[in-house]
């Protein structure tokens, strides 16, 4: 049991938190701007590189400089929206998707150009875990990741439930037409969507960087599980994205637990397929996802 929790459940939880935070941005842009944002992973990568640079400059812990990196990532997202997406606001959806695809490649190339393709680390060395209750092993950095992720999730919850702009965002995601008719400033909601999405993407990226390392394709690699999480939770449902992310993360890790005998249930070499399989299954049998999202 201890083994299950230490090596399958906790890693799954951490991975799930990272997916969840990333998926919120995807699900919100999907429903409010009506397109699948392929460049979301690259916002994440860029955010991590901002954080890495700040760590190098200040020598502080990555979580301390993370808010500044988040602000920088938000500024990036807003300027991208202004330059690339705004002129396409009323264009066919496929153009937006292609534009985001192009931005994905451009952003990655810019990152590779300025920072190089070498592996980097925001927190070099290894950290021995702390033993809790004699059998739980929790690494300090994992504690920090889980706590910070919880804080951010509550912040999102607060924003969506108690603030005017958050309510407007939810209204937009429920029914864009109705929202417009009731006089909600859609342009403001769009900007808020970018702000929330980019800030959370940056945070998720930094968590991943703390857990592993910094690399120019790190955001892109998360794109598929994040989309899977968004679809599982129901497109346009931020809470769905949170739950979906956690489920996907846990499912990926737990799928290789030796439930029967000593062999892993699923060969870990095919872990990445789990997110994909869940996504396909949901699309076929329950396209609206767990939280009754939009179906396109």
């Amino acid at each position, binding site marked *: 049991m201890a*083994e299950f929790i*230490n*090596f*399958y459940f*906790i*890693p*799954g939880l*951490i*991975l799930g938190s*990272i997916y969840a935070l990333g998926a919120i941005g995807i699900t919100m842009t999907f429903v409010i701007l009506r397109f699948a944002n392929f460049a979301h992973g690259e916002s994440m990568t860029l955010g991590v590189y901002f954080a890495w640079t700040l760590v190098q400059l200040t020598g502080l812990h990555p979580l301390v400089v993370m808010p500044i990196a988040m602000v920088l990532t938000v500024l990036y997202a807003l300027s991208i929206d202004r330059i690339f997406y705004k002129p396409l606001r009323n264009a066919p959806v496929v153009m937006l998707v292609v534009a985001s695809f192009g931005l994905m490649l451009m952003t990655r190339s810019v990152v*590779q150009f300025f920072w190089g*393709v*070498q*592996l980097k*680390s925001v927190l*070099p*060395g*290894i*950290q*021995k*875990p702390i033993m809790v209750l004699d059998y739980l*092993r929790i*690494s300090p950095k994992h504690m920090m990741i889980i706590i910070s992720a919880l804080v951010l999730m509550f912040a999102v919850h607060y924003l969506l439930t108690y603030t005017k702009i958050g309510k407007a965002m939810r209204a937009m995601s429920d029914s864009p037409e109705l929202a417009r008719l009731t006089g909600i400033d859609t342009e403001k909601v769009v900007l808020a969507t970018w702000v929330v999405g980019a800030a959370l993407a940056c945070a998720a990226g930094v968590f*991943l960087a703390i*857990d*592993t*390392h910094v*690399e*120019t*394709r790190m955001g892109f*690699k998360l794109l598929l599980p994040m989309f899977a999480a968004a679809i599982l939770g129901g497109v346009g449902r931020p809470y769905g994205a949170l739950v979906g992310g956690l489920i996907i993360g846990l499912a990926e*890790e*737990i799928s*290789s*637990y*030796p439930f029967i005998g*000593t062999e*892993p249930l699923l*060969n*870990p*070499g*095919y*872990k*990445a397929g789990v997110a994909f399989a869940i996504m396909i299954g949901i699309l076929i049998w329950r396209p609206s996802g767990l939280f009754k999202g939009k179906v396109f």
Partner: protein
Amino acid sequence: MKILKKLAITASAIAMMSVGAQAAGEIKVGSAGGVTGPIAELVAAIVKGRQVAVDHVNSSGGLLGGDTMKLVIADSACDPKAAVDAGNKLVNVEQVVAIIGPSCSGATNGMVSSVTIPAGVTVLSDSATAPSISELKDNDTVFRASASDAYQGKAIADLVWKAGIKKVAVTYSNDDYNAGIANVFTTEYKALGGEITGNQAHEPNKASYRSELSTLNQGGPEALALFAYYGSSGITIIKNSLENGLFGKFYAADGMFDNSVIGQIGADNLKGNLWITQAASDTEDASYKAFAEAYKAAGGDPEAPYAAHGYDVAFLMALAIEKAGSADRSKISAALRAVAGPEGEVVRPGEWEKAKKLIAEGKDVNYEGAAGINDFDKNGDVTGLFSVNIVGDDGTWSRSMLK
């Protein structure tokens, strides 16, 4: 429709003309490599090796009647899909004579089977080592200057066995290179009498390998044989193992050899825990010394993995073009065999003028490369030497030759 056809003909005519025009002053050779991707640092040194060789050729007479040899770089990203794109670009757009590279085995397999074998373009890789490359039906167009992992896998098995370790767990990244070498290792280690307690593929690029490692740790293995690229899973696996007290000892192959392994994990954590084998050059050899001097002069570290191989492939390709007498794709394969030896007068790195003269006189040349003797067998493979790297007292890699 007719207009389209006309346009197509005109376009191809223009394309052909422009190729013809360039051939007078410049001969293009494709240089595919994983410039980005999980072994980007290694590839930078390899690409530099290739360029040093090309500079030697161009500064002492150039190719054929004074043509410049030009390397056209294409990023194969250590990925089969990217390598196919890179190969298409080189073969169909850039119209190169032949290709050196790509770096990774999976990328090489992908590129040669979809692009270069059908097109009849000769490929000479400097660092693709998977045993599966020997078995390709390639009409003798795929060569490599590095030894197949059939040799390296055995070298690691010997190393582990001689260290007195009787039980190991094996994990490999799910790609051609790592699966190939893991397979050889497993067979050889069992043949020596060792026990494999667990053998598992893992998916590269995951954030955590704790669950895999926990499963692998069953059955009392004394060490982990880790076949992975450092940048896509290797470093994470070592970190996860050490942090969770799962495995303490690691044996790995050259895909793990990079300074970032020490930088990311910390030298103190790795001292006495990590052994990495690597294709090595005999540093006392005259060919190696000639290369090392030139490479150092160009600002590189000649001991960088496969840098010498990078030099060799570019130099060999230049010799092959010279021997073929023209930038004709179909003649390169035979010419490459002719200049690599074993018959003929020995030519060493940097000796371009001498080689050019010998070829002009119609004599056989035998290139003895910086990385080894480079005589191709029937599969287009070479044998090689290996070294083992450990983290030394000063916190950097310390190397010794195997055998």
